[in-house]
């Protein structure tokens, strides 16, 4: 059971070293989404901030899932390689899946915290009610985190320099959030474009998450999209496993 102990110890260390002790990180991952919730709710809400916020809270959490994978893990791995952190870990006998699972678990716990903060602020200020089944919400959030972290590791696997990894991460995260039903309702786009955008895994994840959390839909209702997300997660993991370089 040593592997399990290592997994937990590494997850805890990641949470402590890269989140709790990093003021900038706390600001970007907790304060900024709340700030966006206020700005977008008032800017887009018009007369009914409640329905706008009900749309935005899961959208903002979904955007954090994307950024968690592309920035938080993808760009971080490239930085770790360049700063020669990875080579030291590579020389230890822990299996590589332990290292990656600990990154995923760290990101999942951070996302749970972010989701909680947004839901509480949304509830107190904008009367947003989360009515979904807590277990279903946790499962779809975990699946989203696993999918986008695994896609993020592809960046970390393929891109050599920290700088290009950062650029790719921002090019993916920011436009995707706007195109994936996170901030702007997708049906404001022309129907043909909206249909194309629904093919994006980010749209499928955010819509499924919103439906399950805010409108009480069941997981089964999104079975197809969930299946597709699993395929993306699997493909991302396979590509990373093939191309990832420790040194």
């Amino acid at each position, binding site marked *: 059971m040593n592997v399990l102990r290592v997994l937990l*110890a590494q997850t805890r*260390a990641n949470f*402590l070293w890269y989140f709790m002790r990093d003021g900038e990180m706390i600001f970007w991952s907790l304060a900024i989404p709340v700030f966006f919730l206020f700005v977008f709710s008032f800017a887009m809400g018009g007369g009914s901030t409640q329905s706008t916020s009900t749309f935005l809270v899961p959208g903002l959490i979904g955007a954090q899932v994307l950024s968690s994978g592309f920035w938080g893990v993808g760009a971080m791995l490239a930085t770790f390689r360049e700063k020669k952190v990875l080579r*030291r870990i590579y*020389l230890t*006998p822990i299996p590589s899946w332990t290292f990656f699972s600990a990154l995923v678990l760290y990101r999942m716990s951070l996302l749970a915290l972010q989701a909680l903060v947004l839901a509480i602020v949304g509830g107190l200020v904008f009367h947003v009610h989360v009515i979904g089944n807590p277990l279903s919400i946790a499962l779809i959030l975990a699946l989203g985190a696993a999918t986008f972290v695994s896609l993020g590791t592809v960046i970390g696997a393929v891109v050599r320099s920290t700088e290009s990894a950062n650029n790719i991460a921002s090019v993916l995260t920011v436009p995707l959030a706007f195109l994936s039903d996170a901030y702007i309702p997708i049906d404001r786009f022309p129907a043909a474009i909206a249909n194309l955008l629904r093919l994006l895994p980010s749209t499928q994840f955010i819509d499924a998450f919103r439906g399950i959390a805010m409108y009480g839909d069941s997981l089964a209702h999104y079975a197809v999209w969930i299946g597709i997300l699993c395929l993306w997660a699997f493909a991302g993991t396979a590509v990373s496993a093939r191309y990832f370089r420790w040194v």
Partner: protein
Amino acid sequence: MSEAAIAVSHLVKRFGDVVAVDDVSFEVPRGTIFGLLGRNGAGKTTTLETCIGLTVPTRGTVRVLGLDPTKRAEFQRLKWRIGVQLQATSLPEKARVSEILDLYAAYYGVPPRAAEFAERVGLEDKLDRFVGKMSGGEQQRLALAIALLHDPEVVFLDEPTAGMDAFGRRILWAEVERLKAAGKTLVLTTHYIEEAERLCDEICIVQAGKIVARDTAAALVTAHGGSACIDFAARGFSLDPSLENLGRWSQKGERWQVFVAVEPGHALGAIVSHANALGVSIDDLDLHRPGLEDAFIAITGEALDDDALAGTAGAAA
């Protein structure tokens, strides 16, 4: 057990057009300390990194404890049995010393002994310090501690005292001697003559990717340093055939140096009477017993570090 701890055979490593390691072969017997000595860029680190699986050889083979680090399964088994202090590495800045030591203990499934290992490397009062707040030398000592937590059979140290102060060097040297007493095999790279001379049972001198000499420090000095080194400044001095036979000469401006192959007193007499015959005065004459540094210069035709080279050039100017 008679098998060598490390066997490197005809190792070649190219990076693009650059040949970093050029047909290097050596064996390291168990329980000995093996040093790769050379200037920066000579190929020491690349050689060491192929032994620990960080670099894949272009040609040639490497075996450590009989295992091939380029084969996944063998490398995995090897990781449990080697300890590595890398020159080029970093640990997370926001981690505390005690947390790093405990996490690495968990990696190897050994009981956490952070306090004990911190003390071994002189960091006992820095257990709560953040890695990012420590000096380079302190980080190097922490890197040494995590290399030793699991009591490895073979320890690789890449420029272990680079950037360390005198205190750090003493700690590292004491630790190396302790490991040797415990029967461990050590491989270290260095560009410090004193470190190689003091610690290593056997020294490989590496130049431009090749091993140019390999022996104990004492044997290298005897074979390449000659019986004495005579160093003097004399304006207008020149050699004649009988002087040339005294040993290996080198000249920089007015400054002459000879590694004497014959009896030192005889050589000194010959130089002085030749200078008198030329009507040349000798200033600043020095006769000393050659050390490893002299042997290094004799073998490679270069000083070991740029400071020493600048010193020689300055003296000649």
